[in-house]
């Protein structure tokens, strides 16, 4: 049996749950999944400005807390916090370890950056147009599978740091490594993938993103514990969390996470296997203990998915609030004014009424809110044009309907993502080792 913890579900996730897992989880592996689809393109931009950067911005904070504990407890970390610069991240981890007087071995996994292999006539999956139709490409990263992580595990490194790896593969790799599973055994690969999929979003398996007071209550919600799995050699697992932490792991929370972001539950495609999520059985076996059993798979696809990041201009936004009688009427009048003034200049102008219809883009049933916030967003090719959206909203203070307050304006650079496919044989995985030694060992 091995114990694998999930210490982060996204780049900005809380720090303490991973620390608690490392301290009290008796873990063999702690996985930190920190790389959303767009994150790597943004990281690539940071690296192009400073070649030492391009790894996760929270790397130092997380490692400073975790390294002393994982060294003491012999837990290995697997993380995609390398983002656009896994080797730079490995060197930063060694620097932190040296500062803390810890001896550590770090393995950086590279080979996901396939920008130089992208061909103009490769097809964009979303549009079926050639890649050449995408302007200002800044990054292309293949979703690598366990084949990229396994050689890093074999080096015995304490920390394995990668760029783009399919999220479930970060969890499946240590199972294959530990149990000696064949990478041809599609059923075992499917089971490990399902466990990885359940764990990859951290708190989302333990009552996070689940709570709805009165309907789906979660105990001690502010102190949500993150999940870990005790995985057996047959690919079954028990999922639980550290005793005394908040949150809830039961049939309902597990069902919600099983289907999260799943395009086809009969064919969940990863670089390692095509897993059938309808073949797995979930059972509550105790308080905050859920058993995952069974699962079938089919052979992995011949191609790998590649995320291509491109510069997509700028978005300008502005917001202002109205409250009291006829709040919605005044907000709508303000929206009409903004539309008249910007419709010629700004492409794709969007006007929303926060408190009424801004997130569902419609309403079900009547709504008479006490306060409404007008929100305007527009796309622009340049920052100068994007700024105008917020400026027009701000100008409603003295030129718009009565009682407008709390105006705010924002601009953001937009990085878009499209996908394409690439044959596996173009991928060249490299493992780079960086090590620190304790000061006293150096003297000896």
């Amino acid at each position, binding site marked *: 049996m091995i114990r694998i913890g999930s210490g982060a579900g996204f780049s900005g996730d809380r720090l303490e749950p991973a620390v608690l897992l490392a301290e009290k989880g008796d873990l063999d592996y702690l996985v930190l999944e920190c790389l959303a689809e767009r994150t790597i393109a943004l990281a690539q931009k940071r690296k192009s400005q400073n070649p030492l950067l391009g790894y996760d911005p929270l790397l130092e904070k997380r490692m400073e807390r975790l390294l002393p504990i994982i060294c003491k407890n012999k837990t290995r970390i697997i993380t995609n916090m390398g983002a656009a610069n896994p080797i730079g991240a490995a060197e930063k981890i060694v620097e932190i370890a040296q500062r803390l007087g810890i001896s550590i071995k770090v393995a950086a996994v590279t080979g996901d950056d396939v920008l130089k292999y992208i061909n103009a006539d490769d097809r964009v999956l979303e549009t079926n147009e050639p890649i050449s139709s995408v302007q200002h490409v800044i990054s292309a990263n293949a979703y690598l599978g366990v084949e990229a992580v396994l050689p890093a595990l074999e080096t015995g490194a304490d920390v394995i740091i990668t760029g783009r790896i399919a999220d479930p593969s970060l969890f499946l790799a240590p199972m294959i490594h530990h149990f000696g599973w064949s990478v041809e055994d599609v059923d075992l690969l499917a089971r490990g993938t399902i466990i990885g999929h359940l764990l990859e979003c951290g708190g989302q398996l333990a009552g996070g993103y689940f709570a709805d007071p009165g309907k789906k209550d979660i105990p001690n919600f502010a102190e949500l514990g993150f999940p870990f799995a005790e995985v057996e050699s047959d690919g079954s697992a028990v999922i639980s969390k550290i005793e005394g932490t908040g949150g809830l792991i039961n049939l309902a929370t597990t069902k919600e996470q099983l*289907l999260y*972001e799943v395009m086809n539950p009969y064919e969940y495609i990863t670089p390692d296997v095509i897993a059938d999520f309808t*073949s797995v059985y979930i059972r509550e076996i105790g308080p905050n203990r859920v058993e995952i059993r069974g699962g079938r798979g089919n052979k992995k696809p011949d191609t790998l998915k590649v995320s291509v990041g491109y510069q997509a201009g700028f978005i300008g936004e502005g917001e202002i609030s109205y409250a009291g009688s006829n709040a919605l009427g005044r907000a709508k009048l303000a929206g009409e004014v903004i539309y008249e003034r910007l419709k010629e200049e700004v492409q794709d102008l969007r006007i929303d009424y926060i408190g009424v219809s801004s997130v569902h883009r419609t309403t079900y049933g009547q709504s008479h809110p006490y306060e409404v916030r007008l*929100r305007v967003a527009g796309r622009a090719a340049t920052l100068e044009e994007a700024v105008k959206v917020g400026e027009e909203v701000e100008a409603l203070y003295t030129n718009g309907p009565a009682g407008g307050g709390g105006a705010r304006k924002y601009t953001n650079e937009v990085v878009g993502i499209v996908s394409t496919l690439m044959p596996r044989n173009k991928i060249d995985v490299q493992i780079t080792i960086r090590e620190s030694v304790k000061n006293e060992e150096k003297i000896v």
Partner: protein
Amino acid sequence: MKKKLYELAHSRAGDKGNTLMLSLIPYNEKDYPMIREKVTVEKVQKHLKDIVEGDIVCYEVPNISALQFVCHQALLGGVTTSLGMDTHGKSLSYALLEMEIEV
């Protein structure tokens, strides 16, 4: 009697590009056959007509007594370039749960 799906089931939204996935999980597994029969693709398509521009596919997931609705062209282009407030469409699980069925 009409009931909101909110009373009978829970849901989580997910996104991939411009595609929105909405699970529908009855609180009581005994309600699964009834929900599977009443919450048809056609009804969901009609209910989400102001949100989903493309087709909707429904997958039955009998091992956990749940449905998965996969909605195409539903996220104003997708999280990275959308001008919407909720670029992921994360709040849209509760749009599905507003749907009413006769029970």
